[in-house]
């Protein structure tokens, strides 16, 4: 009986995964400005008033320290503050083993276009590797590099560039 249940859970997980893949939005993932979930509501309801579904994108946004980690100029190493953010993401992902995520890698505008595509890929993969090392199956994580194509902060100054050097974890649903 126990064995049967386990099989059932795995089957359900596979179904859910397949479903997630099919439901992946055809448009670009929302910009980080739209996905940062720290909207101040703080509770278990969305701004619209409906309940937050456990394991959903909204739940992720409310539960983790941040969906975003930042990097130094030309860097892709995971520093201590990034580790804390990714640890919170790993804990949440461990609770919802059917959820898949994509990690977007982004760069500031001070690199050339093609180099930044490679650098964004490095950053996304650094975050993905960290989550995998925290026990999240790499089959649940995809990466995408946007290079310098999707800046979060629109200025041309050190503060804006620091915000734009980032990796953003987006729940696929």
């Amino acid at each position, binding site marked *: 009986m126990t064995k049967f249940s386990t099989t059932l859970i795995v089957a359900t997980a596979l179904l859910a995964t397949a479903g997630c893949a099919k439901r*992946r939005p055809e448009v670009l993932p929302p910009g980080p400005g739209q996905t940062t979930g720290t909207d101040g509501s703080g509770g278990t309801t969305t701004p619209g008033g409906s309940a937050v579904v456990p394991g959903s994108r909204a739940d992720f946004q409310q539960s983790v320290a941040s969906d975003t980690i930042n990097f130094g100029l030309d860097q892709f190493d995971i520093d201590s503050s990034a580790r804390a953010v990714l640890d919170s993401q790993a804990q949440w992902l461990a609770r919802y083993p059917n959820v898949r995520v994509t990690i977007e890698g982004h760069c500031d505008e001070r690199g050339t276009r093609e180099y930044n595509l490679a650098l964004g*890929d490095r950053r996304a993969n650094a975050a993905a*590797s960290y989550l995998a090392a925290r026990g999240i199956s790499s089959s649940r994580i995809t990466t995408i590099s946007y290079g310098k194509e*999707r*800046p979060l902060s629109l200025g041309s100054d050190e503060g804006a560039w620091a915000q734009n050097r980032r990796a953003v974890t987006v729940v696929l649903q």
Partner: protein
Amino acid sequence: MRKLTIALAAALATIASAPAALAQVEVDIEGGISAPLPIAVPAMPTPQVTSTPAGSTDALGRQLADIVATDLRNSGLFKASGPDQLGAVTMGQVQAPDYAAWSGAQALVQGYVRAEGNGTLTIGCYLYDVFARTELTRQGFNVSPGEWRRAAHKCADAIYTRLSGEGPYFDSRIVYVSETGPKGRRIKRLAIMDQDGANHRFLTNGQSIVLTPRFAPNQQSIVYMSYVNDRPALYIYDLGTAKQRLLVQNASLTFAPRFSPDGRYVLFSMAQAGNTDVYRVAAAGGSPQRLTNSPGIDTGGSYSPDGSRIVFESDRSGGQQLYVMNADGSNQQRISFGGGRYGTPVWSPRGDLIAFTRQGGGAFRIGIMSPSGSGEKLLSDAWGDEGPSWSPNGRVLTYFRSAQGSGRAELWSVDLTGTNSRRIPTPIDGSDPSWGPIRP
């Protein structure tokens, strides 16, 4: 610094009879002592005013001369007067110039437009040395009315080539990325136009980000990167059928494409688990061949015109620098050693120079150096100049300039002197230009 005189055969033919005149009709391509050559391009007459799908032949004659004058002027080598500044020419004078009337110029371009019974247009193009009172070259072009502007570019190319000794570049096109929308969410579409901005049209609809289009040598197709279905990958767009196909199947991130000089291969970059290397794949598709394997970012590959070598950028030494290797990936040698970072290398179609983006001092600038790394020279000076692409004759570069703050981008060109830089007109913002080959 090379001083280029008019083509050698003609020079030898006329040097004995008119040495003084010869000294006048020459242009210096790399910017030295000579001022732009005064050249007159009066309106081209027509033997019979005829209505055509491109307009009446007398109006066309004026427009053709204006395009020829504009092309020559934009090259920076000529002080060109067009039909707006000049008097009319009769059909009889086209092949028998009234030299005395053109003494204000050193060279004279005359021509005619004739509508043919089969619906085509014939454009004659003649170049004269005003001082020596000799004809230097003549060309005739038969075109469909829809391609009338090409006849003007071909005429300008014939004159430019005859007087500079350089290859032609006016009858060519540019494919680029047309941009609109806010900085954080730019809408990017592939677009193509003549090198002077005419005949502009969009190739993609803007639903997916598109980046770095590059012409095939046969100009029938374009390789570029697209984020279609959220999978950034390389596609080949067929200009004839308007269809596109995925270049590398089942790959992770693929980007930074460029065709080989024979068009049979595409050099590109592929990132796998955070490591980017340079690869080659047949343009028809198939399995990629890996050419670099450093743990750093190796990208931006560009073939030498004979296909034997590749220039690329790598951060294996810390920051981005330029490297040259054999086409099979062997013998990788660093060639850039200046301060700052070097990226986006592209080998001149003449083989003599490599153009690049140099980052340093808070700016991106366009520069050139020899394939051995010697003779570095910066050609532009702005906050954000990036991504050079060579004209077909290897004497001019187009690139894009991004504005600090707004990030808005526009297309620019600069010649090898670095002094003749100008904006290339586009309907909206533009980036990632790729200059195509001379048209057949």
